[in-house]
């Protein structure tokens, strides 16, 4: 049975999963969840994702939520096809540890602040609520500090976990693109190593295919 992705076409977490499915050449059926109608809060959905969020997958009866967990599951289950090494093999304990260091950093040092900006300047505005400029400024200040560190790391190695692309890099894309939409692309563009790294991620066919919205491939 083909994998089912229950998601919203432009949700950052949904895009995160769709990209990994494309990287690993895993066909999937996309079942759109209507966020505006709050479909994700209805019983049929919360039975599968009790936190009432998108996305979740149903892989032949195996249900999983949390986009980063889903991405990892796909990368491991289909380790032998598509882009190799998205998670280092567990036989290389140090490489795996450096991947986990980068993956932890992605959330703690990047998403935490980028998501605040996206929420205040994009999500709230779309719903007609006022932006809290103080929160935005705080998040920008933090991102400036963190991205200076990224600039240093990416001056010495091509990707965040080392010389190879991993999920830790890819997971930055959805909220990274939202920074541009919020008019703050300069946070990335002003840093040559970060810009080079980020633009290389955006150029990947897996992102180009889904960036304007997820569609079924099966």
């Amino acid at each position, binding site marked *: 049975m083909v994998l089912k992705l229950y998601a919203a076409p432009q949700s950052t977490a949904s895009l995160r999963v769709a990209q990994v499915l494309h990287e690993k050449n895993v066909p999937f059926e996309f079942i759109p969840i209507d966020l505006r109608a709050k479909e994700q809060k209805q019983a049929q959905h919360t039975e599968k994702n009790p936190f009432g969020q998108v996305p979740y997958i149903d892989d032949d009866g195996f249900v999983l939520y949390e986009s980063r967990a889903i991405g990892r599951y796909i990368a491991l289950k289909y380790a032998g096809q598509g882009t190799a090494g998205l998670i280092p093999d567990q036989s290389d304990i140090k490489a795996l*540890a450096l991947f986990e260091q980068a993956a932890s950093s992605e959330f703690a040092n990047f998403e935490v602040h980028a998501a605040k900006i996206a929420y205040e300047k994009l999500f709230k505005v779309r719903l007609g609520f006022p932006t809290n400029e103080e929160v935005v400024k705080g998040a920008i200040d933090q991102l400036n500090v963190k991205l200076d560190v990224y600039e240093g790391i990416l001056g010495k190695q091509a990707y965040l976990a080392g010389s190879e692309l991993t999920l830790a890099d890819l997971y930055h894309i959805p909220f990274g693109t939202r920074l541009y939409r919020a008019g703050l692309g300069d946070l990335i563009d002003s840093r040559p190593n970060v810009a080079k790294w980020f633009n290389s991620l955006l150029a990947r066919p897996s992102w180009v295919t889904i960036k304007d919205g997820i569609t079924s491939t099966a």
Partner: protein
Amino acid sequence: MVLKLYGWPKSTCTQRVGMALIEKGVPFEFVMVDLFKGESKTPEYLQKQPFGQVPYIDDDGFTLYESRAIARYIAEKYAAKGTPNLLPIADVRARARFEQAASVEVADFDAFAGRAVFEMVFKPMMGGKSDEAVFQDLITSLSAKLDVYDKILAKQKYMAGNVSLLPLPLPSHPSSSYSTRNKRKLTKRPQEITLADLFHLPYGVLLSTAGSDIMQAKPNVKRWFDDLQSRPSWQAVKDGVKSTV
């Protein structure tokens, strides 16, 4: 060379690593990094931990930061020692359930509990003024997430659920007409604790210091959290991480 843990004794992230080391029975030397003297921001320190945070480890020359990454590394490297299966890697589905729980800890617990504790406990230590309204907002959000935790923990003992499938080889029958390949029966072990549960402890415990009893307010969450708090590894680090060598 014995593993060195660089951190601040009562830093939540340092405690997180200390717990993992003790669960796995890994001896370590604790090296104090004096945050109030700026020791985590010196050029030498930034060579090891470029974000200028605690903790990091030096395992015989291999340095690693991000407390959850360090704990995973310890659980993986010493898989055969101490508390078993803290990082369930054996089976793709078990590992996925673990990763789901680990992601929930970061996005649905730490995101609110960490900020709530910061607002009321750490901010004043750094000369800032706590904002009660911000704190209450965060607790309200956390409470909604913990309502979901309570539903999950009504059905399973720990957050990752069933994470071990223990293969049991069938006894061999020389007269059997089946092929010589072993047919293996998979059976489930009792539900096991994983890092995804333990990671909740440092900030979870500080919520009451911050002024919220939310971890006691929901029956299954209370049962689960009281169980975590009673573990010797937490008892060993709750008043500050110390060397075990």
